[in-house]
């Protein structure tokens, strides 16, 4: 009952946050000097053309009025029409979302694997030079953001030793039989492992760039909690039962050490998703972030609006999921 009330409260604050984002974006982008319509029409367009199109997109009304019209549309699932492509914003945004989701999730998986490996290796070799080296590496990985790691990876694995693709989502000449935009997922379902390999080879570099800072955070925090847990009595007791170091770390220490890391990963995952904007640009990956930058450059106001709100919605959803899974994973809360 208490959990349920906490949940309702969360939903309420989430709604406030999202409306706050909507209002801010809406007003900020409309402060832009110059008429976005005039910018996109060819030089020969008449005053009348501009006026007609301006009226069609509603830019002739006052900003609060425009906001109410927009809000009315959103309630009915209509996020407006993109100025540059003249297509519904919702369709455009949802079409690009799978690419960004696949990239973010792949980055998360890589980060968890690397971070987990670092933490376990560091715990197993605690107090040795191996651990010291891990600490130095973690410190560096944390200090430098994904954008720079992306550039470093491009140099290392795109130019110096070109083993991965550093541009695009898939080789353009390939014939894609997909019906959804979840390329990675669908290529597995269709058992097209040739395509799958091509997609992974495109995704791996941007995903790794996004993953490096997060992997370092996971590695650092998890190692810290594991080391603290390794001193506890139940771990010692397990040793007297005849279990070796690996087993003790994995079964006795890990489940108890993982909770603080999990909460942090949730928050950091939203940062990672935010990072896709520039990383997609860097790797010319056709996702939401790349589309967002194009929209900003082209002053496509309805599209910018839609993308920012979608990002904000994803962030808040991730936070909500993390809180729920935290409550579920902690046996003391589950049974308490």
């Amino acid at each position, binding site marked *: 009952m208490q959990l349920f009330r906490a949940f309702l409260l969360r939903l309420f604050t989430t709604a406030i946050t999202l409306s706050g984002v909507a209002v801010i974006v809406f007003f900020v982008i409309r402060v832009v000097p110059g008429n976005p319509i005039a910018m996109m029409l060819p030089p020969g367009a008449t005053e009348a053309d501009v006026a007609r199109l301006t009226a069609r997109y509603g830019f002739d009304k006052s900003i609060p009025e425009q906001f109410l019209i927009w809000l009315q549309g959103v309630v009915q699932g209509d996020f407006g029409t993109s100025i540059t492509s003249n297509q519904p914003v919702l369709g455009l945004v949802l079409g690009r979302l799978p690419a960004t989701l696949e990239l973010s999730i792949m980055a998360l998986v890589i980060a968890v694997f690397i971070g987990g490996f670092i933490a376990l290796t560091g715990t197993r070799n605690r107090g040795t030079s191996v651990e010291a080296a891990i600490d130095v590496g973690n410190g560096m990985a944390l200090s430098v953001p994904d954008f720079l790691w992306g550039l470093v990876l491009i140099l290392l694995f795109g130019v110096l030793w070109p083993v991965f693709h550093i541009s695009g989502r898939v080789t353009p000449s390939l014939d894609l039989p997909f019906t959804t935009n979840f390329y990675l997922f669908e290529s597995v379902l269709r058992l097209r492992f040739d395509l799958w390999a091509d997609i992974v080879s495109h995704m791996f570099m941007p995903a790794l760039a996004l993953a490096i800072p997060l992997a370092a955070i996971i590695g650092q925090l998890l190692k810290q909690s594991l080391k603290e847990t390794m001193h506890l009595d*139940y771990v010692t*007791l397990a*040793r*007297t039962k*005849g*279990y070796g170091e690996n*087993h003790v770390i994995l079964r006795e220490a890990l489940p108890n050490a993982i909770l603080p890391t999990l909460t942090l990963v949730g928050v950091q995952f939203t940062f990672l998703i935010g990072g896709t904007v520039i990383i997609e640009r860097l790797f010319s990956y056709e996702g939401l972030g790349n589309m967002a930058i194009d929209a900003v450059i082209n002053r496509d106001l309805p599209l910018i609006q839609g993308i920012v709100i979608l990002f904000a919605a994803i962030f808040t959803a991730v936070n909500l999921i993390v809180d729920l899974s935290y409550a579920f994973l902690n*046996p*003391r809360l589950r049974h308490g």
Partner: protein
Amino acid sequence: MSFLAIKGLSARLRDTSFPILRDVFLSVEAGEVHGLVGESGAGKSMIGKALLGILPTSIEITHGTIELDGVDLLRLPPAERRRRIGATAALIPQDPLTALNPSRRIGPQITDRLVDILGWARSTAEARARELLDEVHIPDPVRVMRSYPHELSGGMRQRILIASAFAAEPKLIVADEPTTALDVTVQKQILKLIAEMQARHGTALLFVTHDLGVVSKVCQSLSVLYGGMVVERTTVRDFFREPAHSYSRALLAATPKYTDPLASLTPVPETVIAAVQAEVAAHDRSQRNG
């Protein structure tokens, strides 16, 4: 041939010359209950930890042998040593509140050694766990085995840890101050339970404690430690009748008697401490010269 024979065991703080254990000799016969007594810091816990292979990494063994059932544990490769300890010895830990893994159910924490190390079938191991929980007077063992530690009281948890220690029918159990962390009222019951289980299973017991009263109740023989050195090894009867070592006598005088709890106590006198310290120093000198 003693079941447990520790010979000349010395340990020190890693990378220093600070001694933790000084040339310890200790033997426990099969089925014997042996007390290890001394003030805190005397090294009594360290002996139990050394024999179970759970010394803190900051402490290293410099020489000596630990023979368990005729095999020197220190000569075995690490993996084999762990298995051997797991199969023949067990620990009853000090603090029941921290000695059970909070994220695992009780049942698997009792049966894991039987299944993973000794290769029992899961169902056999579970039946055995139920039987043991019954033996330690836990009502409704089936429900308890499905519980998480935080759902049970401290006394219950200590009973579970005792049951778990006896699960694999070890030949030797180390009880490391098993009642210190408990309420005085629960202490007596737990002590009685350990004695009861020991008698039923005929297990040798190394009872680490600072409480001579407890020793007089459960042990047959005891070793007195000071400064990581065994100053006296004797039977309980002889010890309480006439302790041979001056330090033992002083220690006894400093312990409240159950028969006369209000009698005034004498703290261990300075002269006795000085004498025993001189003895320790003399031992160190002979080690250096020899």
